């Protein structure tokens, strides 16, 4: 363990970079002249569920995308399990935002999940019974096995989200990165997703979620990473998810109702 000082001076124990499933150092990403993410250090705890939290436009999704090399950072380093990102791609499963794709695309639910098996299937290998069985198994884990043959356009938002999760499960990865998986989904989906994520954690996997619902943070997550373009706080929920750190993250941007709700949650 080494000690790092975050920007507001709170000292938090962090695992050293070599053992972290995802470590980011000095990451800055900019669209045009305004940085979306500025000089971020983040060290994800192995085998834990971490929430990335911050207001709209705070760079949560951008941080995730830059960590995955989907957007090019201006500066910074990313290591995955202590190694360069590109050598560890097969150990990472990413669940993008639902709205990032066109759901009128001509494909079935099963075909989307089979995309998760791209590493095994490669360019030309045939889809065999065992591949189909694995895809169906992943669909069953999110409660979507009865939907395998439906066109993806027929799904509700929550169902779409679960199909995306099933595709990530098919990769059988060690690190799962999810971008707002609970945004605009029904209660049943939220329950199904959190159950799957907790089972991943129980299996020793690491889960990182961009999250927006402050009320559920303490229920769902072990660790939080608070960000508002700059990193604000990082650590176990009990230590880093406090009224002070939230005030520092959101400034005056929390609605009164949210503050009241949080006061109840945080006690």
């Amino acid at each position, binding site marked *: 363990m080494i000690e790092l000082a975050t920007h507001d001076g709170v000292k938090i124990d962090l695992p050293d970079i070599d053992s972290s499933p995802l470590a980011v150092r000095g990451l800055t990403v900019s669209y045009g002249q305004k940085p979306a993410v500025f000089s971020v250090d983040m060290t994800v705890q192995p085998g834990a569920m971490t929430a990335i939290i911050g207001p709209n436009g705070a760079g949560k999704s951008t941080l995730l*995308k830059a960590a*995955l*090399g*989907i957007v090019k950072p201006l500066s910074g380093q990313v290591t995955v399990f202590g190694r360069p990102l*590109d050598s560890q*791609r097969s150990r*990472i499963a*990413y669940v*993008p935002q639902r709205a*990032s*794709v*066109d759901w009128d*695309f*001509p*494909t*079935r639910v099963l*075909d*989307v999940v089979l*995309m998760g098996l*791209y*590493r095994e*299937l*490669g*360019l*030309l290998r045939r889809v065999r019974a065992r591949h189909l069985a694995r895809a169906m198994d992943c669909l069953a884990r999110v*409660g979507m096995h*009865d*939907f395998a043959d439906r*066109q993806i*356009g*027929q*799904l*509700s938002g929550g*169902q779409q989200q679960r199909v995306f999760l099933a*595709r990530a499960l098919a*990769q059988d990865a060690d690190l799962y*990165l999810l971008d707002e998986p609970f945004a605009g989904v029904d209660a*049943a989906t939220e329950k199904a997703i959190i159950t799957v994520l907790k089972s991943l954690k129980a299996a020793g996997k690491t889960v990182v979620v961009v999250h927006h619902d402050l009320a559920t943070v303490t229920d769902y997550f072990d660790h939080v990473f608070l960000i508002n373009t700059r990193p604000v706080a990082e650590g176990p929920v009990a230590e880093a998810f406090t009224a002070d750190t939230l005030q520092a993250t959101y400034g005056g941007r929390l609605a009164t109702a949210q503050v009241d709700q949080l006061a109840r949650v945080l006690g």
Partner: protein
Amino acid sequence: MAGGWPRRRWTSWRACWAEAMLRDALLLQLGYNATLVAIGATLLGISAGVTGTFLFLRKRALVSDAISHATLPGVCIAFMVMVSLGGDGRNLAGLLAGSALSAWVGLLCLNWLTRNTRLAEDAAIGSVLSVFFGFGIVLLTVIQTMGAGRQAGLEGFLLGSTAGMLWADALVIALGGACTLALILLIRRPMTMVAFDPEYAAARGLPVYRIDLAMMGLVMAVTVVGLKIVGLILIVALLIIPPVTARFWSERSDRVVMLSGLVGGLAGYLGAAISASAPNLPTGPIIVLVAFGFFAVSLLVAPGRGVLAAVLRHLRFQRRVHLRQGLLALAQGQPIYERLTVRLLHRAGLVRADGVATESGRARAAKALRDEKRWEIVRADQAHEAAAALYDGLRDIETVLTRDQIDEIDRRIGGPQEVPA
């Protein structure tokens, strides 16, 4: 009708002759040139249809328009270079190589503009297309004033010209088409992944930019191969119309790809045959019109996505909504105000002309009400999610659940187990 019959006889003789020519053309019995053109056009249609599908799925169909227009300067420069080196300026392979080179430059310009400036892709396409095409026309004009002897009919590349097609030309087209097709089949999976979800593909480490570039390269190859037959202005139609047509018939990308190849191939073959069956029918435009014919038919009659199917579905849906609402109103003893509802109920023998329910009307109404309660249970129960997603207030619950499942639901509702159907 004076003087009518000799004229009619003349037209019917012409019709007979045209029919015989078309039959011969379709059976490839119209001579060497026509056969070459038909085979070339078929292969071109297949590879354009297949390639175009990925472009269409990636929502970048119009990029092909920029690529095709960007071939013109290359054709002209290649001609000038070959002539100045003392060779034959009309060598097809040389002209195609030149066109490929300038199309590639155009593509890189387009990519650079969209990636590094704030120009949206449509504006970038417009700029590249017009500048390259304008430059090409200037070169073409210069060439045409270079000396009558050297006029090589380069303007034939604008709309295609198949009249003087040689065996070597056909071979170039066939080989190019076959290579393109093979390459597409090789990288179809990554291309599909990138088209559906580029961010996920990137997160998996797929080289999204290079896959896009490869796709554009294949489009360019098809364009270049098609210059001789359909020309650079109309090749975009062969890249776009077949996939759009195929999309009407399938919800699976692999099938859309195959259908699109089929539509493209058929359009190429039929178009070439039709244009060979009469003098002065231009091959390229006829191929495009045949492809459009397939599109128009699909637009109208395709089940699912076709216009007619949509209208019929809407009307049927409306009738079922009215019937269902009417039955529920009957079951609950409410008055029915909608005239259409009463008319439909009456026609189905469920109510008398005065609006009072008949025997079977009362039975159906009771069942409708019971089904409504069953659906309520189904929709509230997560275990029945897949069935609940099919709920539209109209579907017979028996088509979605098994008898056992329905019995189970009835037990939960309580009350009588059997309802007169």
